[in-house]
């Protein structure tokens, strides 16, 4: 693993909880590694496992998905559970396929937990740095 390896991390956050926490982290001027790039969906229930694989395929070394705390915080009743179920099954599949499941992280971060967001993102970036690059080349062709 090269010394100057900078992991690329995609963070998919739900609009109502974790994106708001990320905004709060911003307004509170909390810093975390710039490796993390946030992509928003309305709900983690919208997250299709294809997005995760697409991110890995396009060069992500780690992907984190975070939504509202279960059981009741989800703005759409139980989107967080829907994501969690997909996450559990996808994680096991990644492991079988030889992709370290640690590269896909799942969190619950509420709108008020900017400190947790900072901690998790910092930790995750470090963890992926330790794991090293996921050597997958980009395939030709666009979307």
């Amino acid at each position, binding site marked *: 693993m090269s010394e100057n390896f900078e992991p690329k991390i995609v963070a998919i956050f739900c609009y109502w909880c974790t994106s708001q926490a990320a905004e709060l982290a911003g307004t509170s001027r909390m810093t975390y590694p710039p490796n993390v790039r946030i992509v928003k969906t309305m709900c983690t229930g919208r997250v*299709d*496992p*294809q997005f*995760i*694989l*697409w991110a*890995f*395929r396009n060069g992500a070394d780690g992907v984190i998905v975070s939504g509202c705390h*279960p*059981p009741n915080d989800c703005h759409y009743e*139980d989107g967080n*559970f*829907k994501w*969690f*179920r*997909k996450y*559990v*099954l*996808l994680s*096991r*599949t*990644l492991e*079988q*396929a*030889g*992709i370290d499941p640690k590269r896909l992280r799942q969190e619950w971060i509420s709108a008020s937990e900017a400190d947790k967001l900072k901690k998790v993102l910092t930790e995750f970036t470090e963890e992926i740095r330790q794991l090293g690059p996921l*050597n*997958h*080349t*980009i*395939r030709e062709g666009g979307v």
Partner: protein
Amino acid sequence: MGKPKVGFYWFASCGGCEESQVDIAEKIVDVINAVDIAIWPVALDFKDSDLERMEDGEMVACFLNGAITNSEHRRIAELFRRKSKYVIAYGACSYMGGIPGLEVSKDKKSLIERVYIKGDIVVNPEKKVPVTEYTEDGIKIDIPEIYERPYSLDEVIDVDFYVPGCPPTPNVFLDAVNTLLSGKIPEKGYVFGSRKSLCNECPLNKTKPEKVLVKEFKRPHEVILDPEKCYLAQGVICLGPVTRGGCDALCIKGGMPCTGCFGPLDGIKDYGAKAISYIASILDSKDLDEIRRTLEKIPDPLGTFYRYSLPGSLMYRKRIGDEK
């Protein structure tokens, strides 16, 4: 102008694709009358040399089945690409990698050891294993370079159309042949078969409740399935919703759920991921531990959801040439 020339060929495959072509039965006479089969190893004694002698683009179409697993396959595939106007990936192995594509997730070294040294009844005290270049008493035998993993055809050459199925049904094969003969050439990347999923043509779809929510996924040998009721609604994994139709729901009519050999529908980037998405989503639980426990009972997600499509999936992205 003579009859259009077509070719059939096999790479790493099981022969089921050829069977499916032979299974058009009496219609084979029509096909033979309509086209000039330039190469078809299962039935005709034309050789590679006949292929090499052809002009570039001399064949209108070739139907290539089987995955690409060695340098010889690749050479022949490239030859077909040159000689043929349209290349059709025929069958699940060629289209998506197929069942032997599951090999992708395994370690090749352990395989060699398992098969040739530790095989259950192998007697091999000298630990001889096959080599790619064997020399003895001035005799030299070459074996083509075997790739680290199987590839779907479009990972190796440009493919125009796809005929799905493991194997394709005779009907979908005939559809492809007739479409091409009619001159109504579909757009590049077209996959023959239905535009809709298996559910659309499944005889059990009408028995499916409006909401399908499952408390537990059962394995087919653990229960007696009601053949008159949607298998998914009975808690058995059926990949009908995520699988292209056009197969006439043969497995369903045979009393078993769909395992996905026709592959994904248009616009789906990764079959297995999409299957995971809906299977996981219909699990009826709002308890994190219970979710883990219940999903743990699906013993083999990779083999279940990527049974036919692992090499061509988003999971793997190393292409030929990237290996070295």
